[in-house]
């Protein structure tokens, strides 16, 4: 029974990843500018060279054929060759993954710690002054483009990795504050307080379990949000990470890179969301 469940989950995982890759490839292939190349504007190139440029896309014109070959090569660990950067895609991903992972790890950890801490303080103190101050601060960090923070930190020799934390924390704060405030109005929490339980016990035994499921779901999607923020940061601050690679590949319509990235992102998204779903399921089981 367990084996059957795992096999079903695995099959769903693989199918979802493949569909995401195919849809991503479709958008890139049929998007404008796919067969265009800046070199076409070079007046030195003669007609044969320009035709050769156009023909260099011939292997990618038939989408299904390209995707089938891509998957076949992927099974042997070969993710294709990047036309725009003239290097194997696998090499590019493995070199750049470290940079992005460090950026994301610092950003997510910092953002969550700060967001949760402020939310807890906001709910405990609940003064209008604190409410207005946190409203203004979280608005400020949400309204300034993350890349601008990154540049400001760069110019002032600050830790650029904090920029993602500055994007994540207002979202975490907003959700957590609303959920915690709502939890304190629930009958079971009111009852626990009426029965004289300590605030700490009420918080950890009654409030947290109530707010955990949506917060865990938020944890799952915040990785995607952080990665989205990492792209402009890496592009503007010249960090050679996956985000910068994704942007360059998008501008160059580099199909092998974009399909590989879509598949990697789909796999990672599913893994993190499944992990958060598992945690949510455990929470529900504990509550019951």
């Amino acid at each position, binding site marked *: 029974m367990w084996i059957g469940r795992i096999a079903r989950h695995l099959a*769903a995982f693989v*199918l*979802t990843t493949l*569909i*995401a890759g195919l*849809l*991503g490839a479709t*958008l*890139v292939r049929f*998007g*404008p500018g796919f067969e265009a190349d800046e070199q076409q504007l070079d007046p030195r190139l003669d007609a044969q060279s320009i035709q050769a440029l156009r023909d260099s896309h011939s292997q990618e014109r038939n989408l299904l054929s390209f995707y089938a070959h891509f998957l076949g090569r992927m099974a042997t660990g070969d993710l294709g060759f990047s036309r725009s950067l003239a290097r194997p895609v696998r090499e590019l991903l493995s070199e750049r993954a470290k940079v992005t992972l460090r950026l994301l790890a610092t950003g997510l950890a910092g953002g969550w710690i700060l967001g949760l801490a402020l939310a807890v303080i906001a709910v405990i103190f*609940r003064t*209008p002054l604190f*409410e*207005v101050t946190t*409203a*203004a601060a*979280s*608005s*400020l960090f*949400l*309204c*300034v*483009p993350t*890349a*601008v923070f990154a*540049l400001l930190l760069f110019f002032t020799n600050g830790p650029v990795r904090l920029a993602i934390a500055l994007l994540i924390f*207002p979202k975490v704060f*907003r*959700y957590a*504050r*609303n*959920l915690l*405030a*709502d939890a304190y109005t629930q009958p079971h929490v009111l009852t626990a307080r009426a029965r004289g339980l300590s605030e700490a016990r009420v918080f950890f035994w009654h409030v947290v379990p*109530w707010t955990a*499921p*949506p917060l*865990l*779901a*938020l944890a*799952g*999607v915040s990785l*995607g949000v952080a990665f989205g923020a990492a792209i*402009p940061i890496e592009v*503007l601050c010249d960090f050679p990470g996956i985000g910068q690679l*994704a942007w360059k590949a*998008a501008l160059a319509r580099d199909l092998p890179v*974009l399909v590989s*990235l*879509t598949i990697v*992102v*789909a796999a990672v*998204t*599913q893994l993190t*969301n499944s992990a958060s*779903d598992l945690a*949510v399921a455990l929470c*529900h089981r504990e509550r*019951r």
Partner: protein
Amino acid sequence: MNRARNIAIGVLAAVFAVSLLANIFAPVPYAMQFRDFVNAPASRQFWLGTDELGRDRWSRLLYGTRISLLLAPAAALLSTLMAVLIGGIAGYRGGWWDRIVLRVIDIFLSIPWLFLFLIVRALLPLNTSPLASVILTFMVMGLLGWASSARIIRAGAQSLRHSDLVLHARACGCRGGRLLFAHIVPNLKPIVLAQFWISIPTFILGEASLGLIGLGVGEPLPSWGNLLRELANPQAAMSHPSMLAPLVVLVIVMSCFQLLLSQKEFAS
């Protein structure tokens, strides 16, 4: 806290009114270039100075506020409603429906949607009016922005599925859509309101980024997004502090929204 709420309402109303009546409050057309007063500092003639083409920043701020203040919340509302519908139904029903929706959400979150925007731009006639282009941009953002919040709403709906509240409602004969929309969704308000509030600046900044691929607001029409894009050069922003005006207005508006949306929790 009621005083803070009232002030927030007043400020929002004032900002809305001034921006809707931009034709009256703006001293000059937003597109007019005063080429002898390029990058001018704030003065009696130009309250917030001028930009790099000599256009009055105050007029551009007013018109930009009008566009962004109307369209961004509309797009946020659209994406939030879609998230509530899709995530709420998935969390409430569970089973295979829930599994399929989760897979669709994961696929949605993985695809490079930039290319869809490029396709939209390619299909639009080049002479599309800037206003039509920006409305379409916000609409597409709204239609694509539901996925991550649907997941969170789904988790919330799932929690409520086995709650006492739902058990009581079922015992009273409440079923299906009525149970979902009359009992479960109202109890997801904290998440829904948080999501709505977060989406507004996200879409404003998203519209600015889409300007890089030809969508969003076209010249010379201003929006908060393209005014905020100037901040990408922090050194220029430091030498012309009036560039920060759209950011200040946006922060004030967002803070007021937040105070308005969160007042209920304090009231109870």
